[in-house]
Structure formats: structure tokens, C-alpha cells
């Protein structure tokens, strides 16, 4: 068998960075933290410049940077981390049953999304209810996320 799990000394709860030449390499957050923070600030600047007038620019920058910080940190961590150094991580997640459950959940949620979007569009057009596009898309995204989570739980229960 060809897998080489990290030694206990090398593995960390949140893993080590795949960047750098030092051994053992630094914790992933040493690189992901500044990178994620920088990405959040850049996104905050862009968002405040294109979406708001000069009077509200600083407020927009603060709020949007705050909102982007979590996702940007998570994304930076996913890019930076050497997953073989995450404590307890399996070597071949793609061959694990959890991957099958997630595949099933996302496939079925896709069909549900078609039905939801179609039914929602029909209801909105019949009732002539005006809903902003951004709001409708956000609601749809949340419903799909909840649907995937529920279907994953069902697949897990079925084994």
C-alpha cells in the first residue's frame, strides 16, 4: 500500500502549510491567516469602491471586509494546507463512503433546485410579487445548502 501518513509530530489539528522549506513546516494558519486577511481587505476595497458612494465608503469597506473575512480565511486555509498533516484526516477521502453520501446528496439537491426554482418562478409570476434578484438568489442558495445537509443526513442514516 502506498500511503505515507504524517508522523504524530508533524500532524496538527488544522494541519501544516505546504509552503516553505523548514521541517517540520509551519502550521497552516501562519500562511493562511495573513493571506486570508489580505484577500478579505482586497475584496472589501473592491466591494466598497464599486457598490457605494463616497459618503458610505468606509462603512461599506468595514462591513464587507468583516463579512469576507471568514470565507477568505477558510479558502486560504484550503489552498495552503497540506492535508496529509491534518490530524485524523484519512489518506483517501475520495474512496470513503462519506464521499458517496455527499455525491448522492448533491445530485438529489440539484433536482430539488430545479423544482424549487421553477415553482418559485411560477408563484412569483402568478402573484406578481416583486422580489429583488439578489434576495431570490440568496434564498435559493440557502435552501440548496439546507437541502444538501438534510439529504446527506438521510444518506448517512441509510448507511
Amino acid at each position: 500500500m502506498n500511503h505515507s501518513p504524517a508522523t504524530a509530530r508533524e500532524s496538527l489539528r488544522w494541519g501544516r502549510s505546504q509552503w516553505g522549506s523548514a521541517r517540520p513546516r509551519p502550521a497552516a494558519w501562519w500562511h493562511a491567516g495573513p493571506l486570508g486577511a489580505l484577500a478579505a481587505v482586497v475584496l472589501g476595497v473592491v466591494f466598497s469602491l464599486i457598490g457605494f458612494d463616497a459618503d458610505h465608503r468606509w462603512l461599506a469597506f468595514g462591513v464587507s471586509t468583516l463579512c469576507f473575512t471568514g470565507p477568505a480565511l477558510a479558502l486560504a486555509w484550503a489552498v495552503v494546507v497540506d492535508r496529509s498533516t491534518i490530524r485524523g484526516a484519512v489518506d483517501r477521502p475520495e474512496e470513503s463512503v462519506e464521499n458517496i453520501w455527499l455525491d448522492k446528496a448533491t445530485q438529489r439537491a440539484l433536482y430539488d433546485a430545479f423544482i424549487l426554482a421553477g415553482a418559485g418562478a411560477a408563484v412569483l409570476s402568478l402573484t406578481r410579487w416583486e422580489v429583488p434578484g439578489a434576495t431570490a438568489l440568496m434564498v435559493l442558495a440557502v435552501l440548496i445548502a439546507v437541502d444538501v445537509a438534510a439529504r446527506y443526513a438521510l444518506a448517512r442514516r441509510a448507511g
Partner: protein
Amino acid sequence: MQNSVAVRRKDRGWSQHHLADLLGVSRQTVISIEKGRFDPSLPLAFRLAAAFGCRIEDLFEP
């Protein structure tokens, strides 16, 4: 698909966690295979057979 994974694992005194580590998959995967609820991929079936020192057809029966 029926299989003799659980019997062979217990014969060797291995825990499900140990077998999962050997195969590089989650413990839940081993549980699902043993219960016959999850048919492993061909590479995983080969690794299972290698871990038990037998052929795939000795482990699984349709």
C-alpha cells in the same frame, strides 16, 4: 454485496479503526463495507484483499 471482511478482521484481532488506517479510508467506510451497504471501488477492494492476503473473489460474493 456479501463479504467476509468483518470475519477476517476479527480473526486477525484488528479493530475497524486499524483496518480503516491500513486502507486510508474512514472508519465509517469499513463499517458500511462490513454491513454490505457500500460496495468499495476496485482499487479499495484490491487494497482490502492485499491487507488480508487473499483474492478479491475470496472476500466478496455477489
